[in-house]
């Protein structure tokens, strides 16, 4: 489903060239639950952005569902982000001063979902992340953890095949982190492909596969044997 072939990403400023990713290649099958681990500056976020079609690689090929992403137009990419990918940002990236409900409804606005359905679905997903009583709070009235959960609801609301999460538990208490992981597990069981960045081994342990990144290259790609998951037992 996801295929990275010899992907490199180089940031250029006036004087300095920084290589964020260097000749990365891997594949992720449909239904996998993958964690990407690595120290800060290792290029894992860059990898995530390329996977989420939020950024383009400098070189190499990214094939998503058989389509070469680098050859798509901006609008085609927007469509893919809208329908296929749910992205949970580390910095949440909610619309400021806007209610949780409206934030969650936004991807559906661009997908052309009818109004009633939008409202209904947004409510459903907000309830699912435990914010049923906070729907009309604006993003600045919510705590970090609550904002995180709004971001998760927004990432899930289009029912995307792939869920990309950048440090989804980075800003919330460990009890809530477990809840989020349980939610991810449930989604994964339902067939969603999940890729998440984390630096916490506890959280990574929920994934069936762990990719370790350092200095822009993959240093390890292991099957998490401790995890009991039907897919890997096949």
């Amino acid at each position: 489903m996801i295929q990275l072939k010899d992907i490199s990403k180089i940031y250029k400023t006036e004087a300095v060239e920084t290589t964020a990713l260097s000749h990365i290649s891997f594949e992720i099958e449909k239904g996998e639950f993958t964690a990407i681990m690595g120290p800060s500056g290792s290029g894992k976020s860059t990898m995530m952005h390329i996977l989420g079609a939020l950024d383009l690689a400098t070189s190499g090929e990214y094939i998503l569902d058989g389509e070469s992403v680098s050859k798509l137009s901006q609008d085609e990419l927007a469509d893919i982000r809208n329908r296929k990918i749910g992205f949970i940002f580390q910095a949440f990236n909610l619309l400021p001063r806007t209610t949780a409900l409206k934030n969650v409804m936004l991807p559906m606005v661009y997908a052309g979902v009818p109004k009633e359905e939008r409202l209904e679905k947004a409510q459903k997903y907000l309830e699912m992340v435990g914010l049923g009583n906070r729907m009309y709070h604006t993003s600045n009235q919510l705590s970090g953890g609550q904002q995180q959960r709004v971001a998760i609801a927004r990432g899930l609301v289009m029912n995307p095949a792939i869920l990309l999460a950048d440090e989804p538990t980075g800003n919330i208490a460990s009890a809530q982190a477990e809840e989020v992981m349980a939610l991810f597990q449930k989604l994964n069981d339902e067939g969603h492909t999940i890729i998440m960045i984390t630096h916490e081994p506890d959280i990574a342990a929920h994934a069936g596969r762990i990719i370790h990144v350092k200095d822009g290259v993959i240093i390890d790609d292991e099957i998490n044997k401790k995890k009991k998951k039907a897919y890997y037992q096949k």
Partner: protein
Amino acid sequence: MDLGELLLECFSTLTVNKMRTGLAILGIVIGIGSVIALISLGESSQKMVENQIQSLGSNLLTVQPSGQNNGAVRGAQGGGTTLTLEDALAIRTSPTITSVKTISPELSRRTQVIVGRNNTNTQIYGVYPAYAEIRKLTLSSGVFISARDVETMSKVAVIGPQVVTDLFGDGVNPIGKMMRTGTQTLKVIGVTTAKGGSGFNNQDDMIYVPLSTAQKQLFGVSYLSSISIEAKSQDVMTQAQNEIGYFLLARHKFNDPTQADFSIMSQADIMNTASSITGTFTTLLSGIAAISLLVGGIGIMNIMLVTVTERTREIGLRKALGAKQKIVILQFLFEAIILTITGGIIGMILGILISFVLSNTMNLPFTISWPAIFLAMGVSGVIGVVFGWYPAQKASKLQPIEALRYE
């Protein structure tokens, strides 16, 4: 995503970010309001000047006697005694003169006027009732010289407000009071409205008496010092000047116009002054308009650009969530248009209000300058829309993650 949805999204963004929306609208309101107020005020002042010049009478011709030619010596202009009341009456009744509306024969002299212990040396005008009409003279109290006053040689006078102050003192009602000049006593029957002005030919410092009274009782002469003639319109000024000129030449039995014992002056010199004043005003107004447009435009531009960082991130987010480039640009364009229209309308109302209040307090005629309104709305509108749209269109071309990280 259809247009209605998009507009809803615009309104929602605008109402959610009240501070930003408010500041943007304020910028546009001030930009447009100040331009409209300043230009309208300028035009009011211009109109005031034009009115004042108009009040001197712009369709006016003045016939004056030339100095007599005694051999080689040419007398002073206007010093002659060749112009008579009969000339004036003949002009009025002549069938060949068609372009003349009103005729006012006049005799003016400076003379001493005494009331009690006060005295003043001022210009006395012997006039017909037509004088008030031609010179656009209005009275603040009493009545003007009537035809009957002229017929009966009444010893009555209409005086200017300056004369009232000089002879009777401030705030005194002089109607019915007596003034002495030479051996004669004149009764004040009217006071003219103050026109302002100073120095030579100050219209507030004059005394008007019936022409017959001036000629026979005060000065003992039979000639006129001038005939003021009002042409039917400004377009027939030249025609009137020619008609009167040839008529009087014939009447005074001259063949050669250069030998004429009179001269006719039009208000051309006044109109020249008027157009040069108007020209100065137009230049001044253009300057004011340019500066206020610049200031207003920069204000609008600033508020639009100040929000670029936040807005660029918003664009990144919207694109990340699946908004197509066109949709994002359209949204920002619509927002800019909504802001500009709202601010424009408020600014227009404010500008008109300000110029109304100011022209009232400053005693200027109130004018609404439509060109100013169109200019202000046009320029500010374009600036508002361009600076709302341009950064958005730039940001929409970035990769979503670049826009999200924009600082």
